[in-house]
């Protein structure tokens, strides 16, 4: 005779008290949903260099970049300057891209330079231990 497989219950049989937390179970926290408002327009990138340390962005940090946002004054942006991608502060008052490190001079935005704001850096992430994958 074939014995049907016994069903496996994930919950233990409530012989004693049920877990007082059972009624309060919620979904676990999802970093993507917490950090990213426009997934289709958001890209990840790696910071390289030291010009933004004053704003807390260090070499090797992960940058979360939202292309859909309009860049405002004093925001950290990714700009394509003469075809090269760079991360700087957009200074609309002085018409320049500023570094957050006094060793790096500001870059004036002239009508001759080819500048495109690619997106706004909405978060940066530092790794204090190596990431999982």
């Amino acid at each position, binding site marked *: 005779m074939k014995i049907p497989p016994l069903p496996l219950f994930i919950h233990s049989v409530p012989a004693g008290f049920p877990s007082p937390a059972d009624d309060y179970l919620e979904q676990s926290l999802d970093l993507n949903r917490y950090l990213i408002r426009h997934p289709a327009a958001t890209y990840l990138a790696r910071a390289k260099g030291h010009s*933004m340390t004053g704003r807390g962005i260090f070499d090797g940090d992960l940058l979360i970049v939202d292309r859909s946002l309009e860049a405002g004054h004093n925001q950290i942006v990714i700009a394509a300057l003469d075809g090269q991608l760079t991360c700087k502060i957009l200074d609309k008052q002085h018409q320049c891209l500023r570094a957050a490190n006094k060793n790096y001079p500001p870059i004036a935005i002239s009508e001759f330079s080819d500048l495109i704001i690619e997106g706004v850096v909405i978060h940066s992430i530092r790794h204090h231990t190596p990431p999982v994958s």
Partner: protein
Amino acid sequence: MFCLVDCNSFYASCEQVFRPDLRGKPVVVLSNNDCFIVARSAQAKALGIGDLQTVFNIKSWLHKNRVAIFSSNYPLYGDLSNRVMETLRLFSAHIEIYSIDEMFLFLDNIKNASLNDYGRTIKNTVYRHTALPVGVGIAPTKTLAKLASRAAKDIKKCRGVCVLDTAKKWDWMKKRTPVNKIWGISSRFARRLADLNIYTALELASADPKYIRRHFNVCVERIIEELNGHPCLSLEEVPNPRKQIYCTRSFARKTSQVQPILDAVSLYAARACEKLRTQESLAASVQVLLYSSTYQSNYYNSSKVVQLPWPSDDTRLISQIARQTIQKIIRPNVFYMKAGIGLLELSPKQHQQLDLFYPQQSHKTDQLMAVMDKINHYYGKNSIYLAAEGVHKKWAMRQAYRSPAYTSCWGEIPEIQC
């Protein structure tokens, strides 16, 4: 109104997204195994580089003209195509993915007077969110929307957006469109139409539909109706079977375990491969899809496109790749409702370009697959099927100029100078 959004030189544009230095420059993308040129940026076209040109004998010429060359990077194209589609959802709830670079939207509740502005907003938003240039064609039928998108691309004054909302406008366009450029008219049909003195879309549109139906088929009759502004084709919100084969199904009950999902995906891969062999095509890449239950709070769905080492219809190869991919996108503690597989980049098997130095599907595989299909045909489905493990082969494809997987591999995300 139907709206066709068509990405301009899609693969070449994808290569420019993370390389602003290449925007406005000649860029070409090569086929599998780097044989032919399959995509050209506008500047590459202007240099006179032909579609499907063999790359081998013009390589030094390309270098001399500073043409950027890329091997095809389907994981990148698949991801960017998804982003375009997701962005388009801001504009319509009804979307048909016609191909990796073309999407139909159904627009209702938009006043005719503001269609042009709406189209422009679609174009600008897609560019802003994805850095991909698109053309937008809007018209009362899908066939006319296709014409409109051609006009958007070809006529400078349109600047990428064309609305054909009145008979006067679409007649103007039809007069300038040869029949073989109409969506659904093959060159063979075009030749037969030429025998009837029908050369332009306008001439076809004024032909007698009943007469055409008798001499051609009902599809051509529908095209005539569509060209006259009477919609016959509706939005296919499930993917089109001719260009790609999808097999997606819901599970009998939702599951968070890996094994049953893997088994299901192997089964769907086998089904899709059977269909692929029936229509005598080979697939160059595979998409794997996974959906969680919509009724749970951490609703999650994911898909990933993976390139095959060579174009194939081999159930063993495709099933193994699908299983590996599922394991990459599956998340723990999520209950899944549905999974699926898509075979993409289909090409007719008989026109396969052979490559002397690189591996491709062997004759033995063809025979084995033919035998498998025969047995299953005679003795019923699943009389013979794959064991859990697939083949173990070293897959290496020639991709000498592949760009990084900017959006799908942690080690390859773009580096930004700070």
